[in-house]
């Protein structure tokens, strides 16, 4: 009898394991409500993991749903490190990826995997034509636009006005050349020598993470270099303007780190919090870095101002900046009703009424669509306004994240590990080509 019971239990367990393999997905609910079909959009948004932005997004979605009662938006938090896993798992569970809000660097992976489609096929033509070309250009992957920008930012310098003025300098005469910038740095360093409250005179991030890679690449462009050629390959970094830009950029990092004006291996978020605490005089970031600066204390707007990168950077550099943007990506396989809902939602989020508060108080940035032309931009960005049109675009490649992150390793090799600039660049080329050619 005992044997029979044991055998029955074993069989039951075996079959229950087999039963675990089954399962089906759930369809997006779509019911009729009068003449208008009800639709649900699953909206994956990286910004929901940041408190200030999450509050704004939740309120915006709620207000949009109140205006469009046939649309239900289900928001899902997703971050860069896990987005593909999240999407893949959700798709396997029958959950749709209808809309994604993320960074430009996400585009290649999402486009290659077939998660997103061209917004040109979804958004109304009149609205789509209102995007500024130079921002939209950065959303292209393999000659197709795969995202639309919400707003954009060039690289700019956050400056603590109070610390600068205390050292006898004036923002009215902020340097427009690299040499002038170095003079400022020296003056500030001399003034704050021995002051333990001021840890950084001019901060540049060198931690080996993707945001740092983009930041270093922006500096390289400001020095007049080009990293990715028009064919999507690595540009020739061993001769001409590119070599000059790379060498001058590396020397600038060495000058800053070697003199103790910046710390090695810090992330942008480290500088943001230190700047908010009043410990950093200047550092290079995107405009929306202010969101994390303002989390530190309530009075950060009193001392925070911005400046463009100097218009003369080294031999050939014009202080040109790469366009960075937060953008909407639209899921593939949407029904017509869902496409209409996505169109309405993106238009709603790209209007002056919706965005003015956000662009002034939460994520400072410049507008990327003519619908927001009348939008008041935060006065904090006034000082950097000359740089907002001094931008260049770079072809998007699937290995962009790794290729840019390796730039941080190159800088650290040269600055901290005693490698010559030639060897550091050659080593970088080997690493970058490894990723590009895989």
């Amino acid at each position: 009898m005992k044997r029979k019971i044991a055998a029955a239990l074993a069989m039951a367990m075996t079959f229950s394991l087999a039963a675990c393999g089954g399962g089906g997905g759930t369809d997006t609910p779509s019911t009729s409500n009068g003449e208008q079909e009800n639709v649900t959009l699953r909206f994956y948004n990286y910004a929901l993991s940041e408190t200030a932005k999450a509050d704004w997004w939740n309120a915006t979605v709620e207000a949009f749903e109140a205006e469009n009662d046939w649309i239900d938006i289900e928001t899902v938090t997703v971050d860069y490190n896990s987005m593909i896993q999240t999407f893949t798992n959700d798709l396997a569970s029958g959950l749709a990826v209808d809309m994604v809000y993320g960074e430009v660097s996400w585009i290649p992976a999402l486009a290659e995997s077939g998660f997103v489609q061209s917004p040109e096929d979804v958004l109304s033509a009149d609205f789509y034509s209102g995007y500024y070309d130079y921002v939209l250009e950065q959303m292209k992957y393999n000659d197709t636009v795969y995202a639309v920008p919400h707003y954009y930012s060039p690289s700019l310098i956050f400056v603590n006005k109070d610390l600068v003025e205390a050292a006898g300098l004036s923002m009215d005469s902020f340097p427009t050349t690299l040499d002038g910038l170095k003079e400022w740095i020296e003056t500030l360093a001399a003034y704050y020598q021995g002051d333990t409250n001021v840890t950084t005179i001019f901060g540049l991030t060198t931690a080996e993470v993707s945001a740092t890679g983009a930041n270093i690449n922006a500096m390289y462009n400001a020095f007049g270099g080009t990293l990715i050629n028009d064919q999507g390959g690595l540009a020739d970094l061993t001769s001409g303007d590119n070599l000059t830009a790379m060498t001058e950029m590396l020397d600038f990092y060495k000058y800053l780190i070697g003199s103790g004006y910046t710390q090695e291996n810090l992330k942008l978020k480290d500088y943001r919090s230190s700047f908010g605490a009043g410990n950093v005089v200047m550092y290079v970031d995107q405009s929306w870095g202010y969101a994390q600066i303002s989390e530190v204390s309530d009075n950060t707007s009193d001392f925070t101002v911005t400046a463009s990168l100097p218009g003369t950077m080294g031999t050939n550099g014009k202080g040109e900046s790469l366009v960075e943007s937060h953008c909407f990506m639209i899921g593939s396989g949407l029904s017509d009703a869902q496409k209409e809902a996505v169109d309405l939602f993106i238009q709603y989020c790209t209007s002056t009424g919706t965005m003015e508060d956000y662009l002034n108080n939460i994520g400072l940035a410049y507008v990327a669509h003519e619908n927001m032309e009348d939008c008041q931009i935060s006065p904090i960005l006034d000082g950097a306004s000359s740089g907002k049109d001094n931008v260049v675009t770079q072809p998007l490649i699937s290995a962009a994240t790794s290729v840019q992150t390796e730039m941080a390793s190159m800088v650290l090799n040269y600055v901290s590990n005693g490698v010559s600039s030639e060897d550091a660049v050659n080593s970088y080329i080997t690493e970058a080509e490894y990723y590009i050619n895989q």
Partner: protein
Amino acid sequence: MTFPVEAGKKKQRPAFRDQKTKDVLFCLLLLLPAIVLCITFIIIPIIDSVIMSFQDYRLVNLTQNIPGEWNNFSNYTRLWGSGRLQSSIMITVVFVVATVVLTFVTALILALILNSKIRGARLLRSIMMIPWVVPTVITGLLWMWIFANPYGLLQYLVGIFTGGHVTNFSILSNTDTALWGVIIAALWKQIPLMALLLLAGMQNVPDDIIEAAKIDGASYVQRLVYIVLPYMKSVISVSVSMCIIENFKQYPLFATLTNGGPTGATTTLAVLSYDEAFVNYNYGSGAAVTTVWLLLMIIVVFVFRRIFRTDND
């Protein structure tokens, strides 16, 4: 030798053999759930991963359900040619050896102290449990704050002990010291469990044998080397095996503390595998690293088990 036979059957087989067959079948039936589990969740994924390591398998293969294509060992040759594989194997081995040896030695010393009936031993044992119960990611964050530059505790202490001469010491930013930063965090996390396991083993050493050795004039070190440690052989074997495996597959500490940097100085096989598969979305290459990693771990554990083979094995 004759066997009893069952009546009424054309072919007469020994009852002993029938019973044995029945027992074997019954055992197999009882084992069936475990076998199905093993095959489904261990064997098939491993085989799948090994097959994937020989293929060009990208994100699109995963999302569009397109089979991977055989690529002539390209994943392995590319990793080897770039030097990444050798470098990450070396870093992994150094990390595992250093962490396991230091964990074992420190844990053994702690276990000996706790076994010497000192005052407050029970309290110490309870306190020692804390690092072990803290999740590994939290351990990483905790040590990241301690190591932080320029406001970390370590930076502060170095500043004090050097009289303010060293002001920019960042253990995780230096290629020579970054791995040791991770090893320190791993030791903090793993020593308590190892110490408690060794202590449990130590307390099972028969007192009468220790007493007999004392009477025979054996010194403390002699008793430790010739009686205590041999008696603890099976406990040492299990706990060190666990420690080796734990550190071979260590990823959370590297992810939170260094992410493989600076300049690849802490890129272990775990970090390399993650980067290839989930940063560059080259699942074939990630699987190749995983296959090498698995083989290496099997070899190391096999060799270790051979060395520590006991009579019971």
